[in-house]
Structure formats: C-alpha cells, structure tokens
C-alpha cells in the first residue's frame, strides 16, 4: 500500500469538477483508492464520496492506494493535486 499526504492547492477546494477529475484519474487504475480527511475515510472512486470530504483550500488529504498499480496511481494523483486540477 502507498500512502501520501496531499494538500489542496486550488482556491475553490475540491468541488464537483476537481472531484470528477480525481475519480477519472483513479478509475484509470486497477488499485483501490481511499482518501482520508480528519475522521472521514471514503472511497476515492466515487464522486459523491470525494465531495463529502469537504476539502477546502489548503486542507490536507491522506490518500492510500492499494493494488497492482498503486505506485503509478499515487503518482498520478499527486500530479493532479500539484497542477491544481488544471485550473
């Protein structure tokens, strides 16, 4: 399992569009994705779940990837967070 601590860098936070992007990236991989913020842990392959996190600007999210392509998945997500969801 690969875990990473990512920070939300876009001002609007993870609203519907960034959530859709996360799910889209996650679904390209076979591994499972879990995202944690404070005491909420959700499945990263579901849009409603990702929005439920309520991740605003500068909030920290712990992602955990588990499966055959976990390293690639974690890197791709880190990239997405670094790029501020292409905004």
């Amino acid at each position, binding site marked *: 399992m690969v875990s990473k601590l990512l920070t939300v860098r876009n001002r609007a936070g993870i609203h*519907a569009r960034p959530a859709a992007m996360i799910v889209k990236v996650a679904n390209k991989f076979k591994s499972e994705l879990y995202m944690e913020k404070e*005491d*909420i*842990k*959700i*499945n990263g*392959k*579901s*849009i*409603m*779940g990702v*929005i*439920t996190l*309520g991740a605003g600007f500068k909030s920290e999210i712990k992602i955990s990837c588990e499966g055959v392509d976990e390293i690639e998945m974690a890197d791709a997500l880190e990239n997405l967070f670094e790029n501020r969801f292409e905004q």
Partner: protein
Amino acid sequence: MTSCTILELLDIDLKEHNKLQLSCIAGRSGLANKISSSKISRPGLPLSGFFEAFAGDAVQIFGHGEQSYLDMLEDNNEYTNIERLFSYNTPCCIFTHNYTPTDKFIKIAEETSTPLLKTPLVSSEFSRHIYQMLDDLFAPTETIHGVFVEVYGIGVLITGDSGVGKSETALELIERGHRLISDDTVKLRSINSSFLVGSGENPMLAHHMEIRGIGIINLANIFGVGAIRDKKQVQLIVHLEEWEAEKNYDRVGEDNMKASFLGIDIAKLEIPVKPGRNIPIIIETAARNERLKQLGYHSAKEFDQSVLKWFETESAKKMYYINEENTF
C-alpha cells in the same frame, strides 16, 4: 476523538427544538471549554468535602439537593469545597429548576472561566435529555461505502464494489416508492452498543446521487420530499457482487449470515448480480421477508418444518398400508 464545546451544547440544544432549554448565566469566557466524555456528575459528595473518585472532567449538574446544600454552605460562609471543585477544570456547571447561584459563587466561576448554565427543567428530566444527547454525540461511528435505503420500513444497506450498480438499484427502489437516506457514503453510529443508525456523512450532500451518464441529481427535488429520509436504523445488509459461477449462494435461506459493524451484528444477504436479474425486486422481497422474520415467521424454517411433517404423515400412511397387506 470527538468532543463538543459548551457553545455547541447550546447550539445543539437549539437544533433539537430546545429540549434542554439551557441558557448561560455566567462564565462566558469558558464557552469554548470542551466536553470530552459522556459522563455526568452530581457534585453532592465533593461539596461536602469528599473528592475521591470525583469526575471533575464531566458536566456537573446541580439538582435540588446540591442547591440546598450550596445555600447552607454559603449561609455558613464555607467556600473551601466550592473553590476546590472549580480547581478541577470542570467543563461547565448546570443548575436545574432555574436556580440562580449567589454572586460570590458566580465570581469563583468567572475566575476559573467555568460557564454556569441554567435550565427550568427538573433534574430527572434534564438528566434523561442530556444523557441521551451526550450518548448520541459520543457514539462510536464508522463511515462506509454503500447506499442506504428504507424499503417497506426496513433499513437496507446496499454494499458492493463501485460499478456493481448500487446507485442504479437504489434509484429503481425510490421510483417504486421507497426512500433514500444516503448514497455512496453512509455514516454508521452505534447507539448504546445495541443497534446501528445510519445517516449521510454530510447533511448538505445526503440526498444527492451520482448516476453514471447523467451526473449529480437531487432526489428530493426530482422525486419529492417523500422519497428521502434523514436517518434510520440499519436492519439488513444486502451485498451485491458479480455473479461467480463457482460460488455457492444461499438457496434455501437458512444460512443466517451476519455482517459486523462497530461490534453489532446485522443480518446479511449476498445477492449475485447478472443481466436479467431484477435486483430492486429481490431487495423488496428480502425486506418483506425480514419483516416476517421480525414478526416471528421464518419462511425457510416453516417450509422445512412442513416438509418434515409431510414426510412423517407419508411414512405413517405407508406403515399402515404395509400392516393392512399383512393381515389380508
């Protein structure tokens, strides 16, 4: 670890239709104090000077008895025990029967920034309400991936991998007149370690649903307010999974599988999904069957009993005919 500030206690109070009827009389600087356990203390013994096993970190409730004792102490100008009580950094003191403490008492509370609250309720009623509220607040929780619906009054939690069709199944159930509690993330709370209550993780998002190809929809607007519900006891778990030819599924209904969440066992069914199987109707039937079981009628067991009875009568008949043949 969950905790709640005194300010939140006053706030929750408003949301729950002011059941506690609390108002703050002094010590506003301590409104950010945290209540960190569901314990409640009646400080009669500490007031009389016995501080062993005193729960100083709990909410202190001054009922009629404590109030009379307090009056007596103040008449005698005895403040040592009161001062010592406040040295325990207690989160707040609550007076029932709308009792207002003396200025000297308020001064001690202000010095240690301990909020003093009062309520017009009598101690027994107030204790019941606050116990219930704190138990609710400090109940162990777990967030899981699934869809939670109410079908014929039974709380059915649908679980399964993403893409197996949980949301679509729930949508069909709602179309058939059942109710959605939460899609995708369900927050489970163990109440008194005896039953589970499920609700949406975030009340703002709870009645929305994501359907592949359509996007995010608001069910309360599309299907009306009758199609939604805020919380419900979890009574049945339906696990959807892709049909596996090698796997043995329950064919009789006597497996009695259980799923355990937060240490509470809930009846569980495994339903294989494949094209042509109408899952919503299967779930409806499962919910009806669960209701029958709760009423004491177990379809599979009753069926087995009648089969056994039938065998008995058949073999009895056979015995009779064999005996008849022998006599003639």
